[in-house]
């Protein structure tokens, strides 16, 4: 991981600044890297904001946040992702009890639309049915 971080440390000279530099992050396979978020009303926890973080080298993180001051015991999840055509596969490392999931995806501007495809955990279908109602929006 350190090597990965060091790889993005900029220490050498190069190009000049433009007035409106482009957002970073579309991989050769077309999948966007970056931080994406959406808000939703969780039936158990209330208003939530969820972020998915896609690093260029394949690391993935999910970060939930309760937006109305309520208490949740759900921390960040971490793992990896791969892309095969329009299929996004997320492998969850932590929490270890979470199942891996697969989603179809498409990018519309700064909005990432994912549609749940598969998980070994039957609970995931209901959760993603709720989550998939709106797109992920890129965090600037």
């Amino acid at each position, binding site marked *: *991981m*350190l090597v*990965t*971080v*060091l790889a*993005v*440390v*900029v*220490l*050498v*000279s*190069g*190009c*000049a*600044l*433009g007035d409106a*530099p*482009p*957002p*970073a*992050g579309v991989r050769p396979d077309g999948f966007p*890297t*970056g*931080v994406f*978020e959406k808000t939703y009303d969780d039936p158990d926890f209330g208003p939530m*904001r969820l*972020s998915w*973080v*896609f*690093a*260029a080298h394949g*690391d993935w*993180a999910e*970060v*939930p*946040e309760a937006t109305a001051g309520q208490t949740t015991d759900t*921390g*960040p999840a971490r793992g990896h992702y791969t892309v095969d055509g329009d299929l996004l596969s997320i492998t969850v490392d932590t929490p270890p009890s979470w199942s891996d999931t697969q989603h179809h995806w498409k990018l519309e501007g700064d909005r990432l639309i994912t549609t749940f495809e598969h998980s070994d955990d039957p609970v995931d279908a209901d959760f993603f049915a709720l989550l998939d109602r709106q797109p992920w929006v*890129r*965090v*600037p």
Partner: protein
Amino acid sequence: MGPGPVTRPTILVIDDHGGFRATARRLLEHDGWSVIGEAVDGETGLAAAASLAPDVVLLDIGLPDVDGFVVAERLATGADAPWIVLISSRDPETYRERVRTSPAVAFLSKHELDGTALRSLLGLTAS
């Protein structure tokens, strides 16, 4: 410049996007950092850094009031200046020369933020 060995390093997050601040806070705290403050713009961030004295400032380049590079210069003038890590969602190449000449110790793309890796990068091994 920067802190010595610390068990739970402290960090101030300066970014105008609330969603990113919340995401950064949760990721960093999960990885053993103490997020002691957040600020939404450069001037607020400078005031927060002066009062909180964090080990590290995570500083967005694209702030609404003052350019992040200017904030970095001002943060670095103190006797006990924090380590400054610049962040952006833009391509690192965009800022290459300005990062090189800034007092920041590193630049990270926002999606590369990882508290464990950041500790290693800064030599902040747990004591």
